[in-house]
């Protein structure tokens, strides 16, 4: 009998505990749901804020200027036109500027990724005297502001007669310290056993570099390449100073000239059309490499 009472009491206690657990679990679930709801709300609001200016660029570029330039402004325009694009092509040699930008950003990317990865190989796989000092010097150069170098670089290239030429804008960008470090960090993580096996088979250093290290570093190379391509495609000051003639001017520099440096001599519709055309090729490239690029960036911040 006494055991029956105990078990009854226990059962009651168990029930109470279960009920309490259930209550806590519900509370936790509600809290989690509310938290999730707020997370979605915050993310959706920020997504709107992120996309809003880009959507405006697209909309204004297809809106007649009379509508854009009337107060009050409207989010959704009441008419559609292609005139801004026609006007734009009349004002700027867009085709030529796009070609220039592709040549400039493309050449810099290919050459710089090659030179950077060579240097990264030397600085990560070969244990030579003075390597530590060299690394220190390279880290220090990363802190030199580009603007501090611009004047002598410009004068140097002017003396060589390379202002307003492809060579002039490409050559100084053929190596970059950031890329070297990113690649070096990645190369260090590739096991050296592979090199040694190849070395026993009689492979030279360049073959180890080209056939073992490079193929194992595609994500890092893609990331450095995309950074290079993006940085040079979007760069404003360098092409603005180096290219005063439309034959070599890049699209980003051309776009800045269109805005007339603060004064709005060009109608906004035309400027937005130019902005869209200048951004579109890069956005297309980005969407193709997006996943691996984002993963690669994640990698750069790990250490």
């Amino acid at each position, binding site marked *: 009998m006494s055991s029956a009472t105990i078990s009854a009491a226990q059962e009651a206690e168990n029930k109470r505990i279960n009920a309490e657990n259930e209550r806590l679990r519900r509370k936790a679930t509600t809290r989690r749901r509310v938290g999730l709801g707020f997370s979605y709300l915050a993310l959706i609001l920020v997504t709107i804020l992120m996309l809003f200016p880009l959507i405006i*660029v697209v909309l204004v570029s297809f809106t007649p200027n009379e509508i854009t330039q009337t107060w009050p402004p409207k989010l959704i325009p009441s008419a559609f036109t292609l005139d801004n694009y026609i006007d734009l092509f009349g004002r700027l040699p867009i085709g030529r500027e796009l070609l220039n930008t592709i040549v400039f950003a493309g050449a810099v990317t290919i050459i710089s990724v090659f030179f950077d990865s060579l240097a990264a190989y030397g600085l990560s796989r070969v244990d030579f005297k003075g390597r530590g000092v060299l690394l220190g010097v390279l880290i220090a150069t990363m802190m030199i502001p580009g603007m*501090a170098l611009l004047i002598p670089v410009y004068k140097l290239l002017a003396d060589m007669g390379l202002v307003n030429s492809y060579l002039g804008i490409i050559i100084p960008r053929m190596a970059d310290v950031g890329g070297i470090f990113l690649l070096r960090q990645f190369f260090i993580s590739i096991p050296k056993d592979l090199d040694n096996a190849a070395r026993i088979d009689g492979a030279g250093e360049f073959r180890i570099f080209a056939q073992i290290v490079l193929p194992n570093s595609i994500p890092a190379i893609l990331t450095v390449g995309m950074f290079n391509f993006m940085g040079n495609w979007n760069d404003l000051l360098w092409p603005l100073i180096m290219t005063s003639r439309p034959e070599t001017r890049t699209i980003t520099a051309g776009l800045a000239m269109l805005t007339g440096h603060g004064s709005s001599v060009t109608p906004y519709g035309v400027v937005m059309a130019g902005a869209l055309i200048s951004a579109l090729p890069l956005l297309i490239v980005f969407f193709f490499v997006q996943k691996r690029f984002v993963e690669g960036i994640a990698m750069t911040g790990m250490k």
Partner: protein
Amino acid sequence: MTTASSKANKHTAVAHQNKKAIARRNLRVGLTFTAPALIVLAIFVFYPAIKTFITSLTTDRINRSGKFVGFQNYIDLFQSDDFWTDVINTLVYAVLYAPIVVIVALAFALLLNRKDLKFVGFFRTCMFLPFVISLTVAAIAWQFILSPSLGLVPYWLDQLFGIEGLNLLGTRETAMATIVFITVWKNFGYFMVIFLAGLQGISAELYEAASLDGASAWQKFRYITLPALRPTFNYVVIFGLIGSFQVFDQVFILTSGGPARATETIVYRIYTEAFGNGKLGYASALSYVLLIMTLIVGLIQLYTNAKHEREEIA
């Protein structure tokens, strides 16, 4: 016994020679691989860095050489009010931009790191998108949106709160803050992706153990998440700060340094002095002041990192 020792000597001699040969070979290989990049850097980074310093000691102009004046340009700089305005503007920008971009990036990384969240890839891409487009395009878009005579933002503010003719970029008090806002908008997605990777590297077991011990959400954040993100933090802060000393494109397109020098930064001033007024010597001195400011921040950062690492080991 003597033969044995001489044999051993011979051995060490051979080993020594081998070592030397390997060292020589490594040096040759190392230099061969680094040469292309080093030559480019020597001509377009090392040489210009020295050259800029030499120019900063002269009255060189863009089209003709001047004379050697020692540190006169620096003295002139430190005595001019405009210089201090530029320095303060640059520091204000950096002090506003770096912490804000880090906090916003971390906050959204934490949001996106929720396990029960859907569409993570979509949100991440949207937040990263402005980082891909040029500052030129971003600046043009925002300039239009904020324009007091054409823009939607002043119009909406007028309708909602009755604030009339708001000119965020054209008012002294708000121009710099607006430039900071636009740059945060453009760049935080990049730092967010880095934080997100850092967060995903933290073991879930740590959080489970903390939950069993009854830790609150804040305690988990403070004692697990933040320490684990330390290396990421260091990287983000140093790049945020060094980057913010170089601010140029936004100022160039949005405000041209105005109104009344309210957004004139050091780099923008270097540009106008060198390529507008042609005063190369003066602009070079400015460049060196900026370089030294950047180096100081970089060294403080390196020092605090090293100190933290020592403390962690101890």
